[in-house]
């Protein structure tokens, strides 16, 4: 059964029970803790970690969609207030009466209460030579205190993904062209190391070249989603994953990557039906321009095509009808300053019709944040590299998130981490 059908059924059952019956489904605990996610919250990012750890301890928390900007409700235990005090997270103790009032308010408006039952097991795809502080997701998971494991090509290709509920990809180049930095950063030690590691790994895994190996990895990731996995990708990983999937059997890599020039007609030969999000894109043929295709609207590394940064606006969804999209856009800010990445945004022209747009820049030909389904799983793509470092350059100092505890951009990443915790409940319903 498809995920959407499950959601539909779950919502149907919940609606039939009604607010009073739904309340009965929760234990009559002596007290509750509300974790507000509006401007009363002193650390929005750590609040996700607090909820994650509560769920990890077996507590059945709830995500109050659209209630005070996506607050969490946690049955009071001894550990949660301690955890909140240590991390500096605002929590409000509530009695059963106050909770009843909240539930009534939720029932009456465009809000919903989604149970969070099982903390997802998180994997982050990281090459072994990656700097520890160069990935927004790794940084925010560390900051929020959410456990994760690092995996790379060997684990992905040897069926290691099945252990995880949630997979994150960041700025990996799945076309196998080293982010097309090969010419402009020739001789840089980090690039030499990257080339060495990737070449050795491709050989070890039995592939003729790095681009071929990365296509294999992309296929394994797509299969993981197909089987019900949750994929969240940012920056270059979004665009290049789809290029690698659609480029099966097409030479989309330049000669320095696989010793053969890129097929000049590659754009016409792409199999877009294999891609998750994009279609009909034109590939960049110039090997010295660190741009992959016209999927990215901002083209940050092309001097003549680069677009200035604006801001993007989150869409509103119906919490009761479309809880998944609603979860992904929970925020205390609707308009968020944009930030560059090697892939910053996604041109509307290249989006498949089935894609759900979660955030866009009004009036611009690109969108920022998209979501979709493949088989039993889902994927979410978020353009840009680091929400709090809009101009991110190679070698910039790492972002210290204790200076950005209210970052709305980073909140969007954390929405994605908790979202699988909600889905498990829906699947069981």
């Amino acid at each position, binding site marked *: 059964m498809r995920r959407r059908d499950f959601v539909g059924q779950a919502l149907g059952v919940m609606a039939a029970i009604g607010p009073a019956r739904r309340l009965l489904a929760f234990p009559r605990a002596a007290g509750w803790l509300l974790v507000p996610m509006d401007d009363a919250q002193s650390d929005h990012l750590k609040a996700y970690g607090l909820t994650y750890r509560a769920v990890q301890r077996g507590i059945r928390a709830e995500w109050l969609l659209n209630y005070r900007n996506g607050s969490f409700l946690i049955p009071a235990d001894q550990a949660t207030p*301690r955890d909140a005090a240590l991390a500096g997270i605002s929590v409000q103790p509530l009695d059963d009466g106050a909770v009843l009032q909240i539930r009534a308010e939720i029932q009456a408006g465009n809000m919903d209460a989604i149970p969070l039952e099982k903390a997802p097991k998180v994997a982050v795809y990281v090459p072994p030579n990656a700097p520890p502080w160069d990935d927004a997701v790794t940084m925010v998971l560390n900051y929020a205190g959410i456990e994760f494991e690092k995996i790379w090509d060997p684990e992905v290709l040897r069926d290691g993904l099945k252990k995880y509920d949630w997979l994150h990809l960041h700025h990996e180049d799945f076309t196998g062209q080293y982010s097309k930095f090969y010419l402009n950063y020739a001789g840089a030690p980090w690039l030499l190391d990257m080339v060495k590691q990737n070449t050795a790994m491709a050989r070890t895994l039995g592939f003729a070249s790095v681009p071929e190996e990365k296509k294999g990895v992309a296929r394994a990731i797509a299969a993981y989603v197909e089987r019900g996995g949750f994929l969240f990708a940012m920056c270059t990983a979004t665009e290049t994953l789809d290029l690698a999937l659609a480029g099966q059997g097409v030479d989309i890599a330049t000669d320095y990557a696989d010793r053969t020039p890129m097929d000049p007609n590659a754009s016409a030969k792409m199999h877009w039906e294999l891609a998750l999000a994009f279609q009909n894109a034109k590939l960049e043929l110039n090997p010295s321009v660190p741009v992959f295709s016209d999927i990215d609207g901002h083209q940050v590394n092309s001097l003549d095509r680069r677009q200035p940064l604006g801001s993007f606006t989150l869409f509103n969804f119906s919490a009761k009808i479309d809880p998944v999209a609603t979860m992904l856009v929970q925020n205390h800010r609707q308009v968020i300053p944009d930030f560059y990445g090697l892939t910053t945004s996604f041109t509307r022209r290249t989006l498949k019709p089935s894609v759900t747009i979660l955030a866009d820049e009004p009036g611009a030909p690109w969108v920022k944040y998209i979501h979709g389904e493949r088989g039993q799983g889902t994927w979410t793509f978020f353009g840009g590299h680091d929400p709090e470092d809009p101009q991110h350059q190679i070698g910039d100092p790492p972002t*210290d998130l204790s200076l950005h505890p209210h970052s709305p951009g980073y909140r969007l990443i954390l929405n994605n981490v908790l979202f699988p915790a909600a889905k498990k409940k829906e699947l069981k319903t």
Partner: protein
Amino acid sequence: MILLRARRTLSAALGLLGLAALAHGLAAQQAPDPARRGFELERRGNYGDAVGAYRDALKKKPNDAAALFGLERSLIALDRPADILPDARAAIAASPGTGAFYGVALRAWAASGRPDSVRAVAQQWAAVDSTDETPYREWGAAALARHDRDEARKAYQTARDRLHRPDALAGELAMVLSEEHDWAGAVREWSTAVAKVSGYRSTAVRALSPAPEEDRSKILRDFGKQTAPTARWLEADLRAQWGDPLGGYQVLSANLPNDRGRAVEAISGFLDQVRDQTGPEPRRAQGLALAALADRTPGPGGSQLRLEAAQAFADAGDQAAAKRLLGGMATAIDLTSGAGATLVGVLVKEGKVEDAQRKLEQLKPGLVSEDWMALRRTVAWGWVRAGKLDRADSMIVADSSVEGLAMAGQLRLFHGDLDSAAILLKLAGPFAGTRDEATARTATLAMLQPIQADTLPALGAGLLAVERGDTARGVQQLEKVADGLPVDAGGAEIRLYAGRLAQSAGRTADAERLLRSAAVPDAKTTAPAAELALAQLLLDSGRAKEATEVLEQMILGFPESALVPQARRLLDQARGAVPQT
């Protein structure tokens, strides 16, 4: 980088040439002409129409340099640089002896990605003037823009063969070799380049300094084999860059020419490399270089350099060298107030406080009041360190500045007169001295606050021992004082203070014991600060788990403390949740 600069210079020169020619044209005829119209349009940013106007001018006169260069600028702005090819060809046909037109054609071929044509145009251009390096430089630059280093090397080698000059384009070739990590070749070419144009020196250092650790000794050996002094100056600069500033200075001083101007150039270049370095060795190297520069600089400039050299030696801990230098300028007439301050400071650091006070009296007529008082405080600190508090008191008795109040407060504290000390330190507030000194003063006031007694000579003696450099004895004395006081009436606060002193003196075990003993529940105001300091100490000692436990206890035990945000940040660091900064 050099190549880029060369290109930019060329472009700028062409632009200027174009404007000059245009100005000449304007003077010659009053009626508006297409080239002038083109220039106006270009100036307003209307590049599309400017292209049309310049082309109109070129139709009339294909070798109109101003119009051709204007057209090139406009087409570059429109990202259509290759479109100029027909116009460049026509200009060359009209004036085959004008080298600059070949440059336009070469850049256009480069923009259209045609290396064969770039090479052919460069060779045609070279035939116009068989002594000019420019065609080969442009050819190489076009190749490098495509990351084709082989072709660039070929361009530079061709220049050498055709021009019969083995040193031609050495800087350009050196840059290519540096990027390729061909260090032996790079040493050879950079040596040639700096011998010819000394301005290449800083570029050479920038290009060579990223060389990997394992290649550096070989590079230095290769430079050591060079006979030209300029090459050895480069070696000196690199030694300084790679952590051996004194070795660098040795090489430099052994290769200084007799010619004063050249020697000054050599030393100044070295100083540029070491100027931002800190620590005793770099400061000593700076002192040596500044002294050498002072010897070659006449008049007040020389005195100023000598003074800076003395300060550098004093900072490096070499008081003897500092004094020797200052001795050379010791007549009152030579001494500026800065030199006087340095000399008095050196004498105080040497422990010759009596001499320092005498010298200060000699200098008095030439000093402004503020400098005079500042130097008296310097001497007063000398007396404190000599253990003669009365002499120190007498030095600042008339000093009503905030710095004077701060010092007077410290002196009263050393006497054990806590009441007066607190009043004076509060009066000095955050205004006296550096930020660190103000912070230390606040910590002292925090220590004094809970103590009920007005006088406590043992506390003063302990603090004086610390000031005199005997931290071990001072900390011991402070602990003894703390033992005699209730924890909530100064006992805990003094232990915290002593713990911090022990920590800054590297006595980690003592510090940990004192901080733990200060973090007792009865001392409600002191305990959070003591736990925070203890956690920092544990974290600095690589004991993150223990630090985490202490911080958790502090945050949960003292949720209202103003130090909680600081503790949370430290907790994030202990857990690896934020990058180490």
